[in-house]
C-alpha cells in the first residue's frame, strides 16, 4: 500500500496533470468563401492538434457550440475579407475563445494568432513579391530552452508530484499512527513509563522518515524509467534536503495528532494543511506570480522550498550552496514543527 499507491499516483498524475494543449476544437465561420479565406483555413487544418469544424454558416451556431463545450474557439471570417484586403490593404478576423480556463484560452489565442500572423506574412510576401519569411525589417529571434530543452511537461511535473507524494505519505502516516494509539489505548501504557517526551516523538518520527525517503528513491527511479527523467544534480544533495524537509512534514503531522483525539480529526486538519501547502507550493502555478502577501505566507510553507529544490536539483543541477537559504529555512521550519509536537505531547491529561 505504502509503495503501490504512490507509484500509481505518480504515473497517473504526471500524465494527466498537464497544461499542454494537445487538442483544440475550432469552429470556422467562413462568410467570405474566397480563395484567401480557404487558404487560411487550410493553414489551421494542416496543424494536427486543431480539429476543425467547417461549413458553419453563421456565428450563432458557432456560439451554441462554444456554449455546449463542443468548441474551444470560433474563427469568424467576415464577408468580403479578400476584397477588403486587396482594396484597403486591411481586413479583420474575429476569434471567440472559451475562457472558462483562462490558461488554455491564452494558449489558444497565442497559437491561433501566431498562425494568422504567419499567414499574413505569407500574403505580404506573395503579393508584394518579397522573399517569404524574411521581410527585411524583422528582428529574428532564435530560442533555446534551458534545463528542459524539449519542454517536456512530464519533467516539470514529475519532481513536483513526487514532492507532494512524499509529503502526503509522511504527514498522514505519522499523524495517523500516533492518534491511533490514543484510540486503542496503547499510549496509556507508554505514558506511565518514564519515557521522555522527545524520545517518544523521535521514536514516532524515524520509521516514517525512512519510509518517506524510500518512497522518494523509488519514485525517482520510476520517473527515470518511465519519463526518462535524469537527475542532473547531486543525489546526496537532494536527499539531504529531503531529509530536512521531512522533519518538518512529519513534525507537523505529529503535532496535529497531539492536538487531535480521533483519526477523523487528524484527517481533516492534515487535509487542510496539505491543500494549502500544495496549492501554494508552486506545483502548478509559479510562486513568483502570486500576490505579495501569498509569497510572504509561503515563507512558512515547507512545500514551497521543497518543490523548488526538487526541480532545481533534478532539472538544473543546483548544488547545495545555491540553495543554502532554502536549506536554512527548511531546517528552521522542521525544528519548529518538531518542537511544537514535543511541547504539545502530553503524558498527563
Amino acid at each position, binding site marked *: 500500500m505504502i509503495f503501490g499507491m504512490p507509484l500509481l499516483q505518480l504515473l497517473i498524475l504526471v500524465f494527466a496533470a498537464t497544461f499542454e494543449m494537445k487538442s483544440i476544437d475550432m469552429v470556422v465561420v467562413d462568410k467570405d468563401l474566397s480563395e484567401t479565406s480557404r487558404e487560411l483555413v487550410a493553414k489551421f487544418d494542416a496543424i494536427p492538434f486543431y480539429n476543425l469544424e467547417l461549413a458553419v454558416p453563421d456565428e450563432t451556431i458557432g456560439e451554441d457550440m462554444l456554449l455546449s463545450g463542443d468548441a474551444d474557439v470560433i474563427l469568424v471570417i467576415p464577408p468580403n475579407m479578400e476584397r477588403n484586403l486587396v482594396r484597403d490593404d486591411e481586413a479583420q478576423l474575429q476569434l471567440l475563445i472559451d475562457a472558462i480556463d483562462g490558461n488554455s484560452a491564452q494558449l489558444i489565442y497565442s497559437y491561433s494568432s501566431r498562425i494568422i500572423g504567419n499567414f499574413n506574412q505569407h500574403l505580404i510576401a506573395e503579393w508584394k513579391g518579397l522573399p517569404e519569411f524574411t521581410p527585411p525589417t524583422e528582428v529574428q529571434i532564435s530560442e533555446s530552452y534551458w534545463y528542459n530543452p524539449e519542454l517536456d511537461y512530464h519533467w516539470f511535473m514529475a519532481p513536483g508530484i513526487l514532492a507532494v507524494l512524499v509529503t502526503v505519505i509522511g504527514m498522514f502516516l505519522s499523524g495517523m499512527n500516533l492518534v491511533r494509539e490514543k484510540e*486503542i*489505548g*496503547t499510549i*496509556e*501504557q*507508554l*505514558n*506511565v*513509563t*518514564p*519515557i521522555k517526551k522527545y524520545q517518544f516523538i523521535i521514536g514516532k518520527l524515524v520509521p516514517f522518515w525512512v519510509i518517506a525517503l524510500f518512497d522518494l528513491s523509488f519514485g525517482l527511479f520510476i520517473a527515470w524509467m518511465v519519463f526518462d527523467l535524469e537527475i542532473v544534480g547531486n543525489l546526496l544533495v537532494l536527499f539531504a534536503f529531503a531529509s530536512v524537509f521531512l522533519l518538518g512534514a512529519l513534525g507537523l503531522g505529529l503535532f496535529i495528532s497531539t492536538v487531535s483525539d480521533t483519526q477523523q480529526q487528524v484527517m481533516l486538519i492534515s487535509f487542510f494543511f496539505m491543500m494549502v501547502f500544495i496549492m501554494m507550493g508552486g506545483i502548478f502555478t509559479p510562486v513568483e506570480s502570486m500576490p505579495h502577501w501569498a509569497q510572504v505566507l509561503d515563507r512558512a510553507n515547507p512545500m514551497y522550498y521543497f518543490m523548488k529544490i526538487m526541480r532545481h536539483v533534478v532539472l538544473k543541477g543546483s548544488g547545495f550552496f545555491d540553495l543554502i537559504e532554502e536549506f536554512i529555512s527548511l531546517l528552521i521550519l522542521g525544528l519548529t514543527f518538531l518542537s511544537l509536537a514535543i511541547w504539545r505531547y502530553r*503524558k*498527563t*491529561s
Partner: protein
Amino acid sequence: MEKIITVNNLVKKFGSFTANDNLTFDVYKGEIFGFLGANGAGKTTAIRILCGLSSPTSGEVKVAGFDIYRETEKIKKNIGYMSQKFSLYEDLTVAENIRLYAGIYGISPKKRKEKMAELLQKLEMESAKNKLIAGLPLGWKQKLAFSVAIFHEPKIVFLDEPTGGVDPVTRRKFWDLIYEAANNGITVFVTTHYMDEAEYCDRVSIMNAGKIEALDTPEELKKRYNAKNMDEVFLKIAR
C-alpha cells in the same frame, strides 16, 4: 508501617462533575490494597491520578515518596500500571512487547533475556513467544500485561480491573501472580468489582459516588457491617 502512598483531600472535577470527592487514605508498603466501588464510583479516575496519567484538581498526593505535581517522571520509574483496557501492542509478538518495555525502562539486554525466559516458563507461554498478541486468549493477555507491568520490578503496581471478563479459574490463577508479586515486596494497588477478590486483599477501601465510604481489613468490615461476606458489606454501603 511504612507508607508508600499518601493521599490527602484529593479532588478531581470534570467540569461540574466531581469524580473524586475529597479522598484521604494511605497505602502501606508491601500490602495488597483493594480499591472497590461500583462502576462510575471514581476508581479509575483515582488510579489514573496516582499513576500520573491525569492531574488532580486539588489535594496532596505522594507516591513512592514523590510529589504527584512536581515529580511525576520520578514516580513513573517506580510504578507499574495495567489498565482496564488491554494495552500491549496487539500487532507485535509477545517477545517484542517485552523487549519494547524492557528497553524503555532501561533494562539491559542480558537481564531482559534471562527474565523473559524465566517469565515465559512460569506463565507456560514459551510456545507463544513469537506469536502476535492479537491471537492469544484473553486470560493469557491479562497475565502477560501484568507481567510486563512488573517486569522492571517497580515498588508499586497499579491494576485497574485486571480480571474483567475472564472465568473464575483464570481469575484465581491471576491472583496467584498477584500474591507472588506481593511476596517479592511489590505493593499492589488493585481495583475490582468482584467481591470474592476483595477477600484476597489485605485492606480494602469501598468507594461510592466519588467518596470513600469505608476502609479496613475485610474481617473488620464484615464485623462492622454485620455481614457474612464482602458482597453483603458492599451492598450495604453502595445500596
